């Protein structure tokens, strides 16, 4: 319980830190906007002053921060002065798409990588292990951008899957099954790219921690008691290996979000990625900050989820005997 509270507190502190960081950026941002206005002779200084007052820019920094946090809590994610509208609504639909992509990719990655890692660790130095090891190190070492471009080239050239966007043009007219199928076909490419990037990393970690545990005295002791191989692996080794593997989750998530930015842009998936990129190129800084903030929130939430899993899997942490990592 204590661990949970500590982790919750940590997550909140982290949220505070990230928000402060992002807020500091927002403070840097609007200056230029009004500076430009000031250069315009048609806009009187009074108008600018009123505008500043309207957006609360003449108030002290802590109040502005509170204000910003409030808008964050409301889901507005700050105010885009250029468009005169809150950033939130724009962001939410995009974030949902990103979430759909990354959550699916995460689940699939772990579903594939964990058994592979366990299998690899249990058949150490044999053919299967060598093969899995070689392919996962290849997967890790090929940069994501290359994977993305190469898969895209294959997909575009041979028209294997649907490329571009998230749904086809007549999506709304399709039956439910048709909709699912359409979405699936669109997801296939971005998901494959993310899987190719992620499986290697997770498989390696799982293999490393399981094989470390297979060498421990208690696994030897369990073997000496005549417990079967499968039970040994999945009932004895895997629960202990879960701790370091779950700790990897946060790191994995950071990589995944970065990769999904790339993948979304390359495959035209309407997620946070293209949005933040367009915003960066068009200097729409509020959107950039809000998207960064949102992705940070996603990560913190993911990490917190991992902490919950840790508590469920490791009694030592429940009793405050050991710290994660």
């Amino acid at each position, binding site marked *: 319980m204590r661990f949970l509270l500590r982790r919750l507190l940590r997550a909140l502190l982290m949220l505070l830190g990230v928000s402060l960081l992002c807020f500091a950026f927002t403070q840097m941002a609007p200056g230029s906007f009004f500076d430009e206005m000031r250069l315009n002779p048609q806009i009187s200084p009074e108008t600018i002053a009123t505008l500043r007052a309207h957006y609360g820019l003449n108030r002290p920094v802590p109040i502005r921060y509170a204000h910003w946090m409030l808008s964050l809590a409301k889901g507005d994610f700050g105010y885009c002065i250029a468009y005169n509208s809150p950033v939130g609504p724009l962001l939410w639909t995009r974030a949902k798409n990103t979430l759909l992509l990354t959550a699916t990719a995460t689940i699939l990655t772990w579903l594939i990588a964990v058994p592979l890692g366990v299998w690899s660790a249990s058949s150490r*130095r044999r053919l299967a292990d060598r093969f899995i090891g070689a392919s996962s190190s290849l997967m890790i070492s090929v940069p994501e951008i290359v994977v993305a471009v190469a898969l895209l080239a294959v997909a575009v050239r041979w028209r294997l899957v649907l490329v571009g966007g998230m749904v086809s043009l007549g999506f709304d007219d399709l039956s439910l099954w048709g909709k699912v199928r359409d979405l699936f076909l669109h997801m296939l490419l971005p998901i494959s790219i993310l899987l190719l990037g992620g499986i290697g990393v997770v498989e390696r970690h799982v293999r490393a921690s399981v094989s470390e545990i297979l060498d*421990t*005295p*208690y696994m*030897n*002791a*369990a*073997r*000496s*008691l*005549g*417990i*079967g191989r499968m*039970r040994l692996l999945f*009932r*004895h080794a895997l*629960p*202990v290996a*879960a*701790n370091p593997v779950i700790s990897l989750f946060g790191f994995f998530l950071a990589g995944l979000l970065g990769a999904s930015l790339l993948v979304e842009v390359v495959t035209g998936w309407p997620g946070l990625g293209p949005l933040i990129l367009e915003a960066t190129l068009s200097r729409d800084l509020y959107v950039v900050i809000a998207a960064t903030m949102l992705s940070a929130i996603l990560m913190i939430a993911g990490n917190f989820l991992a902490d919950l899993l840790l508590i469920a*899997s*490791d*009694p*030592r942490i429940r*009793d405050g*005997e050991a710290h994660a990592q």
Partner: protein
Amino acid sequence: MPGPLLHVKDLRVRYLPESGGKVQALEGLNLEILPGEVTGILGESGSGKSTLASTLLRLLPASAECSGCVVFEGEDLLTAAESKLRRIRGSKIALIPQDPAVSLNPVTRVGEQISEVLRAHLRLSRSERKQRVRQLLVEVGFEDVDRIVDAYLHQLSGGQRQRVVIAQAIACRPSLIIADEPTSKLHSELHCQILALLANTVAQHDTALLLITHDPTILAGFADRLMVMYAGRLIEQGPAESVMRRPLHPYTRALIGLSHGHTSGNRASHLPSIPGEMPNPLHVMPGCRFEPRCSEKMGVCATTDPQTFSPESSRLVSCLKYGN
């Protein structure tokens, strides 16, 4: 007289470390364990006694090679199929490992870990298993069984952990228990308790016990037979009583002398000790392994490998002093 329970013939084990070279850990061991008998194996660190324990159950690391045979119930364990071996481990031969703190799974409840052994070897229903686990915990001297069943490793003290490990070992009523330094990682105050528990259990179920230790005081009055190991060889064996009272090999004599030396407090004079160190297993010299440290060495000792002699009935010793 019944036949031996376990028969080890010419057992040789060597490690091939990655850094190169060969480490001869066991060299031509011959021994027999009779049913229901307590056999003590005495040796210092590096004598190969722990290697022996894991070889008997074929739990050696992949870098080890072994030859010879370990016959148990008419089957050679060194060549038996893995599935056959799995059925023997834990049910017919059980191992009590050295350090209970690292020999139990840290994230599984103690009760489940004992029940896992029952599950692997016996066809019992869930409730029967539960019943048995509680019974076993009582047997190894726990009073608050309810708490222990649901406890995790980190919630137990050192002595409790060792009791749990013993419960695992005796769960399927094996005919042989191998205990590898069962008390070396415990507080000295607990040694007696744990040894008494072991002694009681084996006596009650007529189990054979192979007790491996570096401390002669543990074996005195407990073991029926005693074997002394040095540098991967068995250098002396015989009835415990007679070996302890009248050791034949100079090494045994020195080793038993050490333990007496410590207890009889008498300041300012030197403690009895054996000069030198165990030979490096990477560089094997000809002749008797103990020759460089031996106080009674003869000229031939440096060049001739001693065979095993039997200077009196039921005593065996590997020392040229007893050759004729």
